[in-house]
């Protein structure tokens, strides 16, 4: 018998087939319906924003990898593409492409690479890019155009939530119909308009066990309960929870942003705390804050607490006494 040489390594010797890249590309696949929907509603401009975002995110990532003398092939782990896609989905379709580039550079540079790259960032990179644009270019970031499928007066056009906050009064029945929110025939950021497209992608992620179901469930229920309490007590002043769930960036935030693995808690209890925090904050900002929308700031705010949440939600070890000493 031929003498073989054997490899010595420690157990376990089996590995699951899933990998970081596969997870990332699963997220990319899950975003396809929403991306397609936004290109349908906003046509060429949407496509241009997506291309610009993804390209500038990849370039920024490549520059940082080069400067930090890191292995170049981690450029294609999929995470930079996700950041690009998610950022684009949170931008208004009217935004000029130079601002799109600035946002993308900031997302990767400030949101991810300064912390040490993939796995080390505290905040969701795409939302860091968006927050930067929101603060630096507030007007451009709140100028909305209607989707190509909607005939309206463009001068006074507002998103469903902007409409709710600044223009409409609930009793007049001028709120955006739920049907339009569901299919996406409304104004708003690129990727957040079509609820059905987002849900299709989200179902895929849940089925593929990429995202923790607790996070979207927690966010949506917290927001529904929060807005529901006000709706029940004074329905003439506040709108019903279903509107809040379907309108604005709630669905994309709950299923695709807050569930970012790196910036969400790793313990089951932690995920609940984090999700309930986000949902309640969104309700608070939407009903009583200065902005019509609160998804971005709520997620970024709760991102800050993730290390702390992880520290204080250690699961109970098998055989540990129920009450902690």
């Amino acid at each position, binding site marked *: *018998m*031929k003498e*073989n*040489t*054997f*490899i*010595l*390594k*420690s*157990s*376990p*010797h*089996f*590995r*699951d087939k*899933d*990998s*970081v890249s*596969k*997870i990332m590309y699963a997220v990319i696949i899950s975003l396809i319906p929403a991306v397609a929907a936004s290109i349908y509603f906003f046509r060429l401009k949407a496509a241009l924003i997506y291309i610009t975002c993804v390209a500038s995110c990849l370039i920024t990532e490549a520059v940082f990898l080069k400067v930090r003398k890191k292995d170049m092939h*981690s450029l294609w*782990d999929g995470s930079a593409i996700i950041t690009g896609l998610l950022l684009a989905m949170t931008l208004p379709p009217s935004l000029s492409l130079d601002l799109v580039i600035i946002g993308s550079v900031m997302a990767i540079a400030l949101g991810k690479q300064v912390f*040490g*790259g*993939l*796995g*080390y960032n505290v905040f969701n990179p795409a939302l860091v890019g968006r927050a930067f644009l929101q603060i630096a270019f507030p007007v451009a970031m709140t100028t909305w155009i209607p989707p190509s499928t909607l005939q309206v007066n463009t001068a006074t056009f507002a998103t469903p939530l902007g409409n709710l906050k600044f223009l409409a009064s609930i009793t007049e029945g001028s709120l955006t119909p739920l049907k339009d929110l569901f299919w996406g025939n409304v104004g708003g950021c690129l990727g957040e308009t079509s609820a059905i497209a987002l849900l299709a992608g989200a179902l895929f992620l849940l089925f593929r066990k990429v995202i*923790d179901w607790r996070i979207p469930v927690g966010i949506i229920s917290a927001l529904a309960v929060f807005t529901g309490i006000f709706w029940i007590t004074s329905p003439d002043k506040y709108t019903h929870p279903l509107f809040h769930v379907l309108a604005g960036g709630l669905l994309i935030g709950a299923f695709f942003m807050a569930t970012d*693995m*790196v*910036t*969400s*808690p*790793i*313990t*089951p209890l932690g*995920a609940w705390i984090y999700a309930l925090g986000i949902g309640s904050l969104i309700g608070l900002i939407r009903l009583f804050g200065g902005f019509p929308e609160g998804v971005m700031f709520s997620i970024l705010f709760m991102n800050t607490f993730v290390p702390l949440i*992880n520290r204080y939600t*250690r*699961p*109970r*070890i*098998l*055989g*540990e*006494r129920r009450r902690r000493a």
Partner: protein
Amino acid sequence: MRKKTFPRGTHPPEYKHYTEGQRLEKLEPPEKVFIPLNQHFGKPADPLVSKGEEVLLGQKIGDSDELFSATVHSSVSGKVLFVKEHPHPLGSPALTVIIANDGKDTPHPDMKGTKDPFSLKPEDIRSKVRDAGIVGMGGAAFPTAVKLSPPKGKAIDTVIINGCECEPLLTSDYRLMLEYTKDIINGAELVRKAAEAKRIIIGIEDNKRDVFELFKQKMNGFPGETALLKTKYPQGAEKNLIYALLKREVPRGGLPFDVGVVVQNVGTAKAVWDAVSSGTPLYERAVTLSGPGLKENKNLLIRIGTPFKHAVEYCGGLKEGANMLVMGGPMMGLAQWNLDTPVIKGTSGLIVWEEEAFPEEFPCISCGRCVSHCPMGLVPTRLMNYSRHGYYQEAEKWGVLDCVECGCCQYICPAKIPLVHWIRVGKNAITSMKRKKKS
């Protein structure tokens, strides 16, 4: 029927079909056997024979005065060639009795059976178990006699017979359960008597439904039952099995008898029966030889001390490119480097395959899968980080010593981080620091 199980854990591919249909064959003993004196948890046995001495099959060749130890017996008859260091499957070389087999298998006169084993007193069963050198045959090799003698004030009410065999590829326990059903059940009853327990529970995973039905029929009126468990890894890990069957939690740092339980593997139960009923000490065990790196896959009854090479050659040898040889299952087994290393009492399998390139390691993306799969309720990624950077006190606070090294976290980790490796580093550092503090 509701299947019992424990929370979390994982389910790696089983690959049991390679060998589950293979009957246990007796492997002819080799010309030379290499019997290490250290095949168990605890102090190595001291040699009772020296170079040039004639020994008989089943003759005691190693013993110790320590409680935490086990006796060692010759697995052939012949002449002692050397008592010297030899490669050992647990890593560093260990003192080994090397015997030239005379091929006659002349039995030692001490191998005498008992006419009515069930009428023996508990202490007699325990001393026979100790004399037969029986250790836990699931892999951990804890001396069985010690397990059967709980300290004062800790009464045992339940004996669990572990027939889970939750490791992928291994089918040696399955074959034992099919072919030696009676012996295992009788052994279980002896264990119950020795531990002075009230009942027996035989736990079998539902991927072995045929043996489950078999055991249910053949319980022979002994007090106890056969329980069906969900097929999940690590169902056979002692603490998880106790939880699955009885919903009792062994306290942190404690042992099963803290909750009135003793767990024995099916192979151990059979060994107890053999030792008591026919006086046969533990010199042979069932081993699965499996994996894509072997020309043929088999289940063999192998004499202790048989070099891996002898067994592998019986299976047609290795395939071209085979570069991983693991003793035990693929989840907790130990990688081996040398085919001269012998089969020991804890060798449940020899698995051979071709390992391709090492997976690229990514930074932790905090997916939390290690947390949602850890059967002990730990946070493996955090333990890994603490150990990797030398924060051993923090690691201990977060329960690193509770880790049973089952490997679920590393199996599931999408970033391919060697979590268990770093956790072991932390555990070793902490235990050696504690030892230093004591002395």
